[in-house]
């Protein structure tokens, strides 16, 4: 089991930049641009990993350890996800949410560490966003899978497979998609393409990072994004036509990239929301989840 887990972790980690590249590529196409190749994130990471770092003079060891711990937490999440059939029986929902919380906590601290006011703004907003997203995240999953009698994700996925596309799952899928958008820092919640003051969330906390540390952080952000998409796919789209293509792997990939396309589509078709509109947006997710709960 341990070995398979590591293989899964490595696989997800290696795939994560591709999803990011794919989303960027889709976005470019949807905006009538040529856009960089989907492999561009790999090139970026590879290059950043060789670069020197410029470190803020005011930064302490918090800034130094943050990239390592964030990457470590991302690897842990990647290893724990219930991807292969029903997972390992140890992937607890709360554990995964709180592992995300760990990296968010450290990133926010790193933002305050340098004393850069933009990074501080990012930290403040990132923690504020967590206040809205974490409840919605838990609720969207618990609303449907609460009937299972465990928060073990593998068992939840099995339940989802048995009850796919029933009303509660359809409602909760909507709720969770909003959470995916927020957790991946995408429009309309956050804009990952800019460093503008108005859109500063996660990107702003990274502002003082460069070189290898930036590479590690970006990579862990990509892994987190892929993990959210995988969770979404596993819980809400557990179908495949084996008659057509008899491979679980291929179907998994197709679904992941389909969700990636959906993310790109929402990004091009909506505008960034004001910060103080976000509670309403996530309340919509909460309401959908509550409806799913009642419909169960």
């Amino acid at each position, binding site marked *: 089991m341990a070995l398979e887990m590591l293989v899964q972790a490595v696989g997800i980690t290696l795939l994560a930049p591709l999803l990011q590249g794919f989303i960027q590529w889709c976005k470019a196409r949807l905006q009538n641009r040529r856009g960089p190749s989907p492999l561009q994130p790999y090139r970026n990471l590879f290059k950043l990993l060789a670069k020197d770092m410029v470190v803020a003079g005011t930064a302490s060891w918090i800034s130094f350890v943050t990239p390592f711990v964030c990457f470590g937490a991302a690897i*842990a999440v990647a290893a724990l996800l219930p991807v292969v059939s029903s997972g390992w029986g140890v992937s607890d929902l709360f*554990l995964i949410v709180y592992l995300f919380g760990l990296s968010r*906590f450290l990133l926010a601290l790193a933002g*305050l560490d*340098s004393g850069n006011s933009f990074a*501080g703004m990012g930290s*403040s907003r990132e*923690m504020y966003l*967590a206040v809205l997203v974490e*409840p919605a995240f838990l609720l969207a999953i618990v609303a449907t899978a609460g009937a299972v009698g465990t928060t073990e994700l593998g068992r939840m996925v099995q339940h989802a497979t048995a009850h796919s596309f029933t009303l509660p799952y359809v409602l909760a899928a909507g709720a969770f998609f909003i959470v995916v958008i927020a957790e991946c820092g995408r429009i309309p919640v956050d804009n990952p393409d800019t460093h503008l003051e108005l859109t500063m969330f996660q990107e702003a906390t990274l502002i003082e990072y460069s070189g290898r540390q930036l590479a590690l952080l970006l990579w862990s952000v990509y892994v987190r994004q892929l993990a959210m998409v995988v969770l979404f796919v596993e819980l809400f789209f557990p179908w495949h036509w084996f008659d057509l293509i008899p491979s679980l792997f291929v179907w998994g990939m197709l679904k992941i990239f389909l969700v990636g396309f959906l993310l790109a589509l929402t990004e091009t078709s909506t505008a960034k929301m004001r910060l103080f509109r976000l509670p309403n947006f996530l309340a919509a997710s909460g309401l959908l989840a509550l409806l799913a709960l009642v419909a169960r």
Partner: protein
Amino acid sequence: MNDLELDRLFFQMVIIFLTGCMSAVALWKSPRLANCVSHGLAAGGCALMFYLAGTVLAGGEAVLIFIGRWLHAGEVALRIDPLAAFFLLLLSVVGGAASIYAIGYTADHYSRRYAILPVLFNLFLLSTVFVFASSHAGAFLIAWELMTLTSLLLVVYEHEHAANVRAGFIYVVMTYTGTAFLMAGFFIMAAAAGDLSFEKFIAVSLTQPQRDLVFLLAFIGFGTKAGIIPLHVWLPKAHPAAPSHVSAILSGVMLKTAIYGMARFYLEFLGVGPTWWGVMVIGFGIVSALLGVLYALMETDIKRLLAYSSLENLGVVLLGVGAGMVFSSAGKPLLAGLAWAAALFHAFNHGIFKALLFLAAGAVVQATGTRDLEALGGLIRRMPYTAAAFFVGALAISSLPPLNGFISEWLTLQSLFFLPQALTGVSGKIAGALLFIALAMTAALVAACFVKVFGIAFLARARSRKAETAKEAPFTMTLPMLGLAGACLYFGLQPHSMLQAISRVLQPYIGIDTRGLFEVDRIGLMIQANHAEGVLSVTLLAGLLLIGCLAAAGLYYLRGKAVRVTAPIWACGRAATPRNQYSATGFSGPVRWSFRYVLRSQRQRIVDENENIYVGRKLAYHQSIRYIVDEAIYYPVQRWILRQARFMKRLQAGSVQLYVGYVLVVTIVVLAWSGRK
């Protein structure tokens, strides 16, 4: 180890604490010596207590320490059962750390009245021991009052500040009101049992209204001590007022005496109650948790912030207690065991990390002379050990893996997750979901709050001259902090032994079953309760995190030696000053705005219109929040009392003639009365 040896050990411990008092009195002329001897003895007493409590907890059997007949009080017994031993263990850990810390910390307080401080400290520890060890209503109440009294004197120790005296006053009023309720509860029990001994209270036959009444009386009585909102007003004032090593015990242990009391009443004396008991406890718990953390997040006084965060944590503990009661009444003994275990473990963990945070905050306050976050900053370089300890405490209190706070938060979340199994129907589902949202939101707010504290106080650059010149605390202070930080890590990675001990504590009580609840194997922790399961693989998690970090390190060095160049931060072309940094008030801004209907935030901006708009005007900015609970409940009560007082003032105007007149009138009335036939 038999009872006889343990009771000798207990008396040795009592004698050590008393010697601690005496020696401070004897050595009052040389504060330095009094400090070392007295606090050293307190630490020794705590070490004995640790051994004693550990032995009882490991054995799982109650130990009778002392029994005696005394006047009409019946048999007065000191008995340490596993429940008491569990809380004594917490007291010994926190008390021991605080005693050692006090040696370094109080060295700043040397004065003529210094000797009072160690005397009170030893007495405070001792009376808390007796609160846990008494198994007699009278003895318990006496110990309870002694604990209140000694802690009160410690709160007002620095009576030069008017605010401290005021805090002490509010503390007295609130806590005696609470004790009155407690006494009433004990009287009802004693009247029914015909005895004051705790053993006779167990499953005493009361009518249902009587049981309801005792439940409510105990809830109000202990709730005042625990600082449940709306009975909390004294807590955020009194805890910061005390010297920091005392604050650590006040928040870490004294609040838990309330949880201990509730466990005694609800588990042992009253047994399984109707569902509304548990629902009510949960209701108060969630309100305390959410409001407590919101107020903590808005606070900029580091010690008051920690006090508010205690409200939040006690709220989370109450969620576990309430869920346990609900499960008991629904006939789900295993789930009840889970919920109670979550409550007890969280109480224990909170004791450790909150004590750690208070100790570290005390070191910061001593080094910088200010409690205001907006004046701190950059302490991570000036005080590296304190910063490291505070960092661990902040992670633990934000319930992040792999620290102890996460384990108890996880258990609490699990017990709330299974709540719909006891509260059936749509309303149960919705209530469960809403609790879930509220608890998840609380956890996120706590994380925001402690990012704020650590980030503003310890990171970036100093915001004031004092913070710039701060010096690291002496090793007597840093050592206990680091020890507590180690305990946070230990109970996060190895929660098994403590959870097994807790399940032994809970097993004897009616309506609870913990047999086979916690399965421990290689991968970690497993809960198993009929239709409820949960797996938490702590070891695996730690391993994965470690492997992940190593992989990151591998990638970091993948392409040769890493070169780090230091440069100043970018501040749009100007030289960045500490005033460019984010402030604590600014950090909590978005949350303040979102919760403005609860917090009633107000701000005041005064702009100097005379200056040039393009260069930048002088700006004064004032931000405040209003406390709705205080305004809704306490202010009207206060106004009512003042109105009555004004009325009474007319009777008692201070004129001697008037008083002579009163005496005359009374005499005449008495004469007339006695003369009637």
